[in-house]
């Protein structure tokens, strides 16, 4: 097979990056000229309010390999990525930031990783050019925690420069602010990946859209991902397990109140605090069990299938090599 058959889609979400899009396009075109692949560059304009879209229109007019998707308003980076994935037609999808901090010269090395048979390749900004206290330290902490919780040793979950086999992204549906966990979620479902060190450049134009408060959100989202992947595969079991403490508490209080009633003399009243508490806990126990069943119904009627997310790599490998 000639290597020409490999098609590459580069997905770049942009939000108010008017000074960067043109440079980025030129850099990518320059890099890919040296690689014998057919490529397309998909810009997703996430509701920019500056001249970004006008510049993109001009780029599109000048080069048909550029495609532009414009959102009606700012929906966020995750939906923008998803829109890019939905539109991508290449065998390999590369994502990167629109702020020029990622270096397109790393793309060929990402492609080599895919060619070597990995489901996705992620960038690691080992030498980050960002502010130390608001960006680097929180990010380092978050990555340590993510690695701890998912037990997947990824150094840099936040790096946008990644390459995926298309089949992998097509099976993934992103929502909320999940794009950060694509690697973690994918490897939880059995995909293989490689991490490569990529260049990172300081911002030249425009301003950063991230801050410290993001890190906290990221962490809560991460816990959610972890819980969701567990709960969604066996909801009744997990809701059932959550209900056990309430069952135990209820039983304890019930036993205690039964004892109180048994030993109390007939004419004396017994305080209802313990029986009431027992009943409350019993209600919680019953409710959780029932919710587990509803959850089972929800999962059954939904599209999430664990077995589907583990992908056969053979067919794509053949095409790539």
């Amino acid at each position, binding site marked *: 097979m000639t290597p020409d058959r490999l098609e590459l889609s580069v997905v770049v979400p942009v939000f108010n990056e008017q000074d960067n899009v043109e440079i980025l396009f030129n850099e990518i075109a320059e890099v890919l000229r040296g690689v014998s692949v057919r490529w397309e560059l998909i810009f997703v304009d996430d*509701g920019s309010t500056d001249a970004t879209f006008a510049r*993109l*229109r001009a780029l*599109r007019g000048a080069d048909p390999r*550029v*495609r*532009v*998707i*414009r*959102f*009606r*308003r700012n*929906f966020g980076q*995750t*939906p*923008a990525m*998803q*829109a890019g994935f939905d*539109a991508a037609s290449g065998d390999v999808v590369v994502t990167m930031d629109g702020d020029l901090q990622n270096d397109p010269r790393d793309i060929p090395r990402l492609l080599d990783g895919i060619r070597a048979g990995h489901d996705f390749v992620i960038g690691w900004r080992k030498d980050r050019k960002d502010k130390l206290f608001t960006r680097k330290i929180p990010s380092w902490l978050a990555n340590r925690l993510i690695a701890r919780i998912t037990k997947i040793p990824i150094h840099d979950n936040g790096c946008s420069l990644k390459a995926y086999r298309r089949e992998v992204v097509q099976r993934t*549906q*992103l*929502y*909320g602010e999940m794009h950060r966990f694509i690697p973690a979620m994918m490897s939880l479902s059995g995909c293989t990946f490689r991490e490569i060190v990529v260049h990172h450049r300081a911002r030249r134009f425009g301003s950063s859209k991230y801050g410290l408060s993001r890190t906290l959100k990221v962490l*809560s989202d991460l816990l*959610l991902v972890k*819980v*969701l992947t567990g*709960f*969604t595969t066996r*909801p009744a079991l997990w*809701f059932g397990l*959550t209900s056990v403490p*309430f069952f135990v508490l209820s039983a304890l209080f019930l036993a*205690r109140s039964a004892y*109180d009633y048994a030993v109390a003399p007939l004419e004396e009243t017994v*305080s209802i*605090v*313990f029986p*009431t*508490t027992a009943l*409350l*806990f019993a*209600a*919680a126990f019953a*409710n*959780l069990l029932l*919710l587990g069943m*509803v*959850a089972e119904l*929800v*999962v059954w*009627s*939904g*599209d*999430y299938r664990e077995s589907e997310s583990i992908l056969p790599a053979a067919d794509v490998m053949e095409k790539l090599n």
Partner: protein
Amino acid sequence: MTESAATAAPEVSVIVPISERYGDLEAIFREFGGELTRMGASFEFVFVVDGSQRACLPALRRLRDAHAGAVRVFVLGKSFGEAATLAVGIERATGATVVTLPSYFQVGPEGLRESFRILADGGADVVIGKRHPRQDAFVNRAQAAVFHWLAGRATGTHFADVSCGFRVMRRAVADELTLYGDLHRFIPVMAVNRGLVVQEVALPQRAEDRPSRYAGVGIYLRRLLDLLTVFFLIKFTRKPLRFFGLLGSVAFGLGAIITIYLGIYRILGFGGISGRPLLVLGALLLVLGVQCVSLGLLGEIIIFTHARRVSEYRVAEIL
């Protein structure tokens, strides 16, 4: 009217949902239809009658007989409410531009020309009427002001008259609005949430709109619940656990503090707790917290497993 003219799709569909009260429907047809004729637009009127308002049918029959082809009437089998009648109207409308009208005169037809111009210029995707100057009684105006202030706070939008029944939009935009329950009151808010541009056009309020505004406790309660629904739909449909989780953790945290306090009290031997109603409160809060969080989790599972069916973004343009 010739056969071909009757069957060709008109340019404008005027939808009149009749679900709560109605005024002189023939006059509505005459005034708005007359204005559309003067504007040189071909039109159809789609009257959708809720099951509870069948009394207006004779008038509509007369109208239909007098203007064959320009008047279509649909009757719902039973009472489904305003949102459903409106949805049926949008579904049946054949025109490229959709105008919705209240079933009584809130505003006159003079705003049509400007609304069409705004749509044509691309200045907005949805044009809604804003009754101004208002002729209502002071109580009604105060009540509307409170409602709009609350709605603005809850949804982050600023509309002066969000529930005005006069709306003009293109067909594709109308199709996109999913209406159920009482959500028709918040069409502009939902449209903004989908990234559509909504513009209000000031129209003088008609005298017919003034009388018979009912307001009871039940109505206020329903409006508040509607607001809560819209607030949730806009802010948390994609992250239900954030909403429920916050409520739940507050309750659970309070419950935990109370029970831990009582536990220490008991273990350190300050006295028995079998007579302390505080324990019931603590247990109740714990239970409430867990229920809230687990419901949020269930919501999150629903989104997680059905994410492929609901697209989160709206595309304006593809080059």
